[in-house]
């Protein structure tokens, strides 16, 4: 037996000791996954071979995708995915609807705060609400999120304080919140770096004998980074319980996804030995189903899973960006028809679940959140004590920095008493 095989056997032995039920569940999920793989990847490959055209199989296209709610609001059947959201009641769908409306409102309010000079910058998530809510709401509190800077919707599902959400964008902190308080690392600004952190964290979960899962959020642009590819190698090699959640929003600032990939991004993962799913990222139910499948695989010792949620960044990269310079004019119209919130709204309407009372309640909640967020924002003091620049560099005293700190304190003190 090779050494690696020995290690994996060791993992499995621990798993068996943890829960026989989990093993049983895993067998079910492996069967499920085979179905899913056969409905996505195998299909993709067959069709690719048949058509032989890169153009038709472009990484931004919506063919070969898992969809449970069509853009017109009708419910699509999917034998592989439906069982994973069979328990979701209409009331729960309304909750997901509310979440999406609220985070779109958060996004709009934060953009306004930036325009009014209260924030230095904001990275809008407009259009990506379903991808973030559908996945974020599938997580348990003991799972851990490693994200980029656009996952404010995910942060909302983790219960982040609104002031904490805005600190970075107001320029008063390098990170807003205590990662351990909400089970979410502070966002990585270096593209793709967090995927490795998720992998290491997941490995630690395995070592600790718990079934918590790490989930890494990143974009289509990040998949070109070495770190993301290395994370998939490590996750596969160590069978780490990690979910790679790629929001393919079609743009890396001005670069279209076609520059990052010639084929579906989800096609890469199987090459690393990681099963993958390609879902409609504007379909909150499909995203939730895929995330639940991936989480369940991870919890039951099945290792990593890759999800590509195909969506569209309807806004700019950040408030400093001008997408008019590069985005085709008809894209917004086309993707507007696939809007995640209105399609769920239509589904709920067709079931009589989106009554006037519900709509009012949802809008009132969004208004209240926006008010709360604005109040939290302006309450954050922009004037910090200059000595704070030294805080937290090291856990233990560092003599070189201590000297600079004391000299700067003396320098500042020299101004006390004013001009003579």
């Amino acid at each position, binding site marked *: 037996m090779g*050494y690696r095989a*020995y*290690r994996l056997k*060791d993992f499995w032995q621990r798993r068996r000791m943890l829960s026989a039920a989990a093993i049983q569940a895993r067998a079910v999920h492996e069967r499920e996954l085979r179905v899913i793989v056969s409905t996505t990847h195998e299909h993709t490959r067959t069709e690719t071979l048949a058509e032989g055209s890169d153009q038709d199989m472009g990484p931004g296209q919506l063919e070969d995708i898992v969809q449970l709610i069509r853009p017109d609001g009708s419910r699509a059947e999917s034998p592989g995915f439906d069982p994973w959201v069979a328990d979701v009641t209409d009331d729960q769908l309304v909750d997901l609807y509310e979440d999406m409306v609220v985070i779109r409102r958060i996004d709009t309010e934060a953009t306004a705060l930036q325009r009014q000079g209260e924030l230095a910058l904001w990275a809008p998530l407009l259009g990506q609400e379903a991808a973030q809510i559908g996945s974020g709401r599938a997580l348990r509190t003991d799972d*851990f999120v*490693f994200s980029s800077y656009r996952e404010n919707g995910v942060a909302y599902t983790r219960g982040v304080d609104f002031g904490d959400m805005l600190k970075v964008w107001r320029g008063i*902190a*390098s*990170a807003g919140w*205590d*990662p*351990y308080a909400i089970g979410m*690392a*502070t966002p*990585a600004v*270096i593209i793709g*770096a967090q*995927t*490795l*952190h*998720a*992998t*290491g*964290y*997941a*490995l*630690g*979960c395995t*070592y*600790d004998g718990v079934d918590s899962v*790490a989930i890494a959020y990143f974009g289509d642009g990040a998949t070109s980074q*070495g*770190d993301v590819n*290395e*994370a998939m*190698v*490590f996750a596969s*090699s*160590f069978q780490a319980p990690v979910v790679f959640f790629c929001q393919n929003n079609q743009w890396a600032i001005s670069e279209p996804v076609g520059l990052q990939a010639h084929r579906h991004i989800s096609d890469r993962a199987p090459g690393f030995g990681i099963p993958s799913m390609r879902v409609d990222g504007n379909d909150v139910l499909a995203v939730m189903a895929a995330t639940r499948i991936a989480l369940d695989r991870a919890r039951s010792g099945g290792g990593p899973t890759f999800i590509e949620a195909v969506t569209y960044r309807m806004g700019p990269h950040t408030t400093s960006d001008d997408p008019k310079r590069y985005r085709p004019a008809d894209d917004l119209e086309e993707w507007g028809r696939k809007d995640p919130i209105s399609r769920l709204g239509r589904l709920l309407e067709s079931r009589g679940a989106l009554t006037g009372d519900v709509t009012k309640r949802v809008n009132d909640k969004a208004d209240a959140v926006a008010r709360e967020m604005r109040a939290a924002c302006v309450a954050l003091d922009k004037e910090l004590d200059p000595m704070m620049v030294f*805080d*937290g*560099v*090291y*856990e*233990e005293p*560092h*003599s*070189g*920095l201590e000297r600079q700190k004391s000299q700067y304190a003396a320098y500042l003190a020299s101004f006390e008493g004013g001009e003579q």
Partner: protein
Amino acid sequence: MTQMTLGGAINSGLRHALADDDKVVLLGEDIGKLGGVFRVTDKLQEEFGPRRVMDAPLAEAGIIGTAVGLAFRGYRPVCEIQFDGFIYPGFDQIVAQVAKLHYRTRGKVKVPITIRVPFGGGIGAVEHHSESPEAYFAHTAGLRVISCSNPQDAHTMIRQAIACDDPVLFFEPKRRYWLKGEVSEELGADTLPMGSARVAREGTDVTLAAYGPLVPTAMDAAAAAADDGISIEVIDLRSLSPIDFSTVEKSVRKTGRLVVTHEAAQSGGIGAEVAAAVTERCFDWLEAAPARVTGFDTPYPPAALEEAFLPDLDRLLDAVDRVMGRRNSLTGWKATA
């Protein structure tokens, strides 16, 4: 006390760290069955199992980034970078994540990661196997950078690095791995203040500051100079971030002269920092301008040329002559003291 090689002393230090704290995990290329290309992790996997001593896929960013995630989960990862020149693929994770995570989160996330790096030349190796990249890391806030020069320090300092709640770059002088010395395993992590230099030999005329592989060379220089009636005080810096300037300052105020040496290139190096700090702090005590004896501002040369590149006994003594105002290679042999 046990006779150990420097590499064996690190091995023994790692064994203690693994035994003392089950959150300590080792991660690196070929560190398992092989025991590392320099055998520094010899038999540790056998003893502690493949979870505690993990062979990693061949990706330095992957090793460091995975260690960051493990640290998030409360582990104390010890990463081995196989050779100095292989650290650059992991550079981003080190300077952008390992170094900044504690500051970014105002200490909410602790990053007790140790990164072991066999460094320096003198072993006749091919390109990328003889470099001294320590200054990059000493220049990076949030990291601690240390380097050992003898078996006892190697043993104690690796335990100190692992016990430290800050990230530590631990530079191991690879050409001294086989240097032997007495080691007391009683001298654990808490027996040495973090970031403290060591007076390796007392003297009165010249302070010679060195670290890692050049400390034995500096000791040889001090012995040779003594024959010539010059008393050299050798300081083993041990820590490069922070640098223990109080020890250096005390010595220079006594001797009035400073020579600082390292294998790394001169410009922007540790020697420049030491010379600048000594000039700032000891200007009124200096009898001569500080002198640096370093590798040149070239890439590390092919093995057949490394003797020309590496500071050696004669180049150190030449610099000692310079700060003593004696005839030296720069004045030409006509000048006199």
